[in-house]
Each structure stands twice: as structure tokens, then as C-alpha cells.
């Protein structure tokens, strides 16, 4: 029997705000499952529904097949790592970790052994008698983890645990969390707004927006095959090209016309019919750029363009080019010594191209999702070309 956490059609509203709207999810035993989305998307509410601090207005929460919807938090076999850690300030590290076991009235020898084991796991055995106000952020977080894990919960709920840490520490703690998960094997339900954390740590991710699930999948699936403009724009960067399906290239590929440019090819896994309007999304790193015209190949989309913006970032360079009415962002990695090349500059005439496999057609596009992208402001007086209806 697999221990898993299941949400069935849960909804929760606070006042006039629908925080979670009819969401269903399954978390598999032993996996690291992340809820990823911007603030206000409902991910924290989902976590609190799992922990028992909120009751759903509708739907059920199941743990290992058992309906825990009406169970209060102290009776659930799940434990939470709070964003503020919420360590008990009047207790030492040792007492904090031991709390859950003492409440469960375990024998003293067992408590001592388990707490010592945890202290070794988080490498804080020499700080066991300190009070939380003397600890650093990273140390507090480790104590919070130990305090939760020592109770051997069926699921560990993590509420943006790295949000309060600075960048370097965050990166280190991410690796530590990974290691802890490998060692302990408990199911993690991880909530974050940071895609780097989610992508780096998770087995699967659910991307949420406005109380709904946009897409569930592995990090690779989410990144390479987003279903909606929200997912495409929230994770990483992308280009949104506005067009229309004009016909089939062959069994798996469609032909599109984008801003008056015919013959763009794209893999069609969504069975979009000819004559339908569609948005094509292509990630900048999948687009190539050069001064010389590339070889024409089957399934290769090529466009002549003019360079409008260049940002040199060291290991990569971002280019914004204009091909007729289409504006495309290109991300180029410098895998050779750059000073040897003649760099591509503003107003240069170039060719950009990408493979038909590398773009994706979106099931749903919303203009507001473009605000999630990191694009430079458009020049004044310029028409928006093919990127807007």
C-alpha cells in the first residue's frame, strides 16, 4: 500500500476570495512534490488544508487511503515546517526537537535516543542546549526540520522554508534538504514561489495560479512542454508568437502562419485544427542566431532578422531581434572563447532559426501572463507586430 496524500475536489474561500477552487491532486509515496506559483495562488492554503489548520469548504483530504478531512492537526500524522520556523523561544534546541515525542508520551530513553539521532543528522549536537534566539537562520531551519522529522510523519509539509534565507544559504540548504530527503525517504509536500527551488528539488511539480492547478508534471515536462501561457511564462523565459494554423505539414506537425509569415512548422500534440488561431511558444535558448544563413532543412524554421537589443551576461548573451513584424528573444550560450568571435551587434542583419520540435502550441493564452516575462520595454511608437492580437 502506498502512503500517499490525496486532495479530492477541495475548495476553500476566505471572505470574498476563493483561495482554492476545486483542486484535485495526488502525491505519491516518497516523492518530493512541489506546489509552485506566485503569492496568492493558493499553494499555502493547500498546505494548511493538508496540515489541518484549515477545513475545506468542499472536497476531501486523504492520507494513506484514510479520510482526514475532519481530523484536527494534532491528530494527523503529518508535520509542518513553517516559513518563520516557529521554534519555541523558551525551549532549548533539544527541548524543541523532543516536543512532539513528549506530547506523545514516549518513554524518556526513546526520546533521548531519537533526539540525539536527529541532532547528528542536522549536525547540531554541540548546540543542543542553546535557545533559538542565539541561532542563525540556517540553524533555526535545521532545528525546525529535525523537530518535524523526529516524529516520523507520513508526509512532511514545507511552507516556503528557504524564503527567509539569503541567496548563498538558500542554495546550500536546498542541497541539504535534498540529502535529508534521500536519507529519510519521507514524502515531501513543498510550497514555494521560487521556480529554481521547485525545479531543483522536486520529483513532480504542480503549477498553481489563482486557486487552480495549471499543470502537473515533472520539472522537465513543465519546462519543455508547458500547456498554458501562465506555465510557459512563469517558469523560465519564452517567446509568444501569435498566429494561425494553416494546415498540416505531416502527421505530427502543423504549419502555421505567424504575423504574415507562412510556413512555420511546429509539433502538434494538441490536435489543433486548421483555421484555428493559436499561440506558439518558443524558449529563447532553443532559438539560434548567426550572421550566416543556415542550411535549409526539413522542420527547420528560419527567419531573416535585424538585431534590436543585446545584453551580454557573461556565459550567455540575450538578443532581441525583429523579423518583419515578429519580435523574438534569443539566448545564446558562449561555449567557445568569445573574444575570438566578431560579436553580433545592434542593427546587424542576422538569421534566427529553430527546430519544429522545439516550439509548443499553447492550449490557453492570456495576455496578462506576458507580464511574468523579463522582457525589455518596447520602444515608443513601435507597433507590436505579431505578438499581440
Amino acid at each position, binding site marked *: 500500500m502506498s502512503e500517499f496524500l490525496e486532495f479530492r475536489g477541495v475548495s476553500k474561500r476566505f471572505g470574498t476570495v476563493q483561495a482554492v477552487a476545486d483542486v484535485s491532486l495526488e502525491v505519491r509515496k516518497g516523492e518530493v512534490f512541489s506546489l509552485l506559483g506566485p503569492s496568492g495562488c493558493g499553494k499555502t492554503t493547500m498546505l494548511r488544508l493538508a496540515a489541518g489548520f484549515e477545513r475545506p469548504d468542499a472536497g476531501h483530504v486523504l492520507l494513506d487511503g484514510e479520510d482526514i478531512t475532519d481530523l*484536527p492537526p494534532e491528530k494527523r500524522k503529518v508535520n509542518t515546517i513553517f516559513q*518563520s520556523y516557529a521554534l519555541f523561544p523558551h525551549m532549548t534546541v533539544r527541548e524543541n526537537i523532543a*516536543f512532539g515525542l513528549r506530547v506523545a508520551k514516549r518513554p524518556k530513553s526513546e526520546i533521548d535516543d531519537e533526539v540525539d539521532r536527529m541532532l547528528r543528522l542536522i549536525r547540531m549536537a554541540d548546540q543542543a542546549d542553546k535557545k533559538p534566539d542565539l541561532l542563525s537562520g540556517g540553524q533555526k531551519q535545521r532545528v525546525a526540520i529535525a*523537530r518535524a522529522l523526529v*516524529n516520523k510523519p507520513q508526509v512532511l509539509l514545507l511552507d516556503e522554508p528557504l524564503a527567509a534565507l539569503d541567496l548563498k544559504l538558500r542554495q546550500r540548504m536546498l542541497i541539504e534538504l535534498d540529502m535529508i530527503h534521500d536519507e529519510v525517504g519521507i514524502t515531501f509536500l513543498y510550497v514555494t514561489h521560487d521556480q529554481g527551488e521547485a525545479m531543483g528539488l522536486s520529483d513532480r511539480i504542480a503549477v498553481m495560479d489563482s486557486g487552480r492547478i495549471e499543470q502537473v508534471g515533472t520539472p522537465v515536462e513543465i519546462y519543455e512542454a508547458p500547456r498554458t501561457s501562465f506555465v510557459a511564462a512563469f517558469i523560465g523565459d519564452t517567446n509568444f508568437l501569435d498566429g494561425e494554423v494553416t494546415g498540416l505539414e505531416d502527421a505530427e506537425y502543423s504549419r502555421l502562419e505567424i504575423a504574415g509569415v507562412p510556413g512555420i512548422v511546429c509539433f502538434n500534440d494538441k490536435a489543433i485544427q486548421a483555421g484555428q488561431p493559436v499561440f506558439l511558444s518558443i524558449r529563447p535558448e532553443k532559438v539560434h542566431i548567426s550572421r550566416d544563413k543556415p542550411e535549409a532543412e526539413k522542420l527547420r524554421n528560419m527567419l531573416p532578422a535585424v538585431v534590436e537589443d543585446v545584453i551580454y551576461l557573461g556565459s550567455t548573451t540575450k538578443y532581441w531581434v525583429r523579423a518583419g513584424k515578429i519580435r523574438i528573444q534569443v539566448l545564446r550560450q558562449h561555449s567557445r572563447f568569445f573574444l575570438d568571435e566578431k560579436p553580433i551587434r545592434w542593427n546587424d542583419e542576422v538569421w534566427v532559426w529553430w527546430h519544429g520540435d522545439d516550439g509548443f502550441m499553447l492550449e490557453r493564452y492570456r495576455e496578462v501572463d506576458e507580464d511574468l516575462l523579463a522582457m525589455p520595454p518596447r520602444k515608443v511608437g513601435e507597433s507590436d507586430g505579431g505578438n499581440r492580437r
Partner: protein
Amino acid sequence: MKRSRLPIWITVGALIFFYLPILILVLNSFNASRFGTGWQGFSLKWYAQLLHEPEIWLAARNSFLVAFGATALSVVLGTAAAFALHRFAGSRLQRFHYALVYMPLVVPEILMGISLLMAFAATGVRLGLGTIFVAHVTFCVSFVAMTVLARLQDFDDAVVEAARDLGAGWGVTFRRIVLPMIAPGIAAGALLAFTLSIDDFVITFFVAGPGSTTLPIRIYSMIKFGSPPLINALSTILLFVTFTAVILSQRISSPRR
């Protein structure tokens, strides 16, 4: 950047202003002269005389009795009030409750004294230690409530959720987590109530009966009709006691890191 020295000088001046009368008082308590107009040698005779004033000791005893009692009751009432104001903040009942708790803090003491006196007179209640006790509780509740409320507002609610998350029911959570965390706030409130009660004059003056004197009332009659040097000695003792109490209160409410 050149900054005016004026504020600093005013500050120093203000501090001298604060301490001058007190220093004179303390000095004069050791002054053998009766009138404090000239120094006539160091003497402890006023302190010795103080020990032989039974009325002062009676008044002190009354003050402490009332203070302990009033502190105890006002801590209970005030802490409960603070919880209600914090937990249910915003409801109509609590807005009324807050105004009710807040008013005694801003109203001049004489108004509280006179209104209680009227109430006792109108209902025929005899004035004595009992009425003093009631009056003291009435103004102490507000101070305790505000002190504890300030602590509660700094309270990290996530800690309560963490306790429940780890398996503790409401009873255990309250006993093991909430209470120890707010204990310093309650202690500070209690100390505040105690000091206010010991020190209170105006309200006590109005509701005290002929037979019941507290220390401040005794001091007042000594000021009006009695011997200045004794007051100096008594004041110095009280200064010392309050000073110690304040240091203690600071240690309790903000432990050294």
C-alpha cells in the same frame, strides 16, 4: 554636517532638572537640621525616629495588603481582557471593550476618585480598605490589560500552530507553550499594577474611610501637617525600594541576551 548643540544642552538641563529635587531630598534626610536650610551635620536620627512611628507602619501594612490583593485580581481580569482583545480583535464587543479598558488610562484620577465616592455614597457602602481595594483594581486592570496586550501582539501565532502540528491539544499548548511565553508580560503587568497601587494617592484619598490609611495618604498628611525631615527619610527609603523594583522589572521583561 554641523549639528546644533542646543538639543543636547536642553537634554542635560532636563536631566539636572529631574534629579535636583530628589537629590536635595535624599541629602536632607541625612541632615541633622530640622529645616533643611543649612547643613548641620550627617545624622541618621530621622530614620531612627521613623522606626518609632506606629501609624506609618500601619499605613505601610495597609498599602501592601491592598497592593497584593489588587494586583492579584487585576492580573486575572487584565490578562483575560488582553486575550479577548487580541484574539477577537475587531468585533463590536471588543471595540466597546477596548474603549472601556482604555478610558481609565486617560481620565484624570480625581474623576475616578470622585465617581467611585459618589457611587459608594449613593449605595451606602462604608468606606474602608474594601473600597480602596475596589478602586485600585479598577485602575490597575487597564494597565495590566494594555501591558499584556502589547506582549500578545508581538506573539508569533505560528508557534501555536507548530505545537498543534506536533500533536499537542489545546490544553497542552496553552500550558507548555503559550503561558511560558507570555509569563514575562504578565509579570511586567503585575509589577506595574503593584507599583501603581502602592503609589496611588488621589483615588485612594477619595475612597478611603477614616480608619483606613495607606502610605501615600499618611505621607500627604505629614506634608500638610507634619514633620519635613521624617518625610525626607521615608521618601529616601521608598526611593530605594522602588528603584530596586524597577531594576527587577527590567530584568524580568527583557533578559540579557
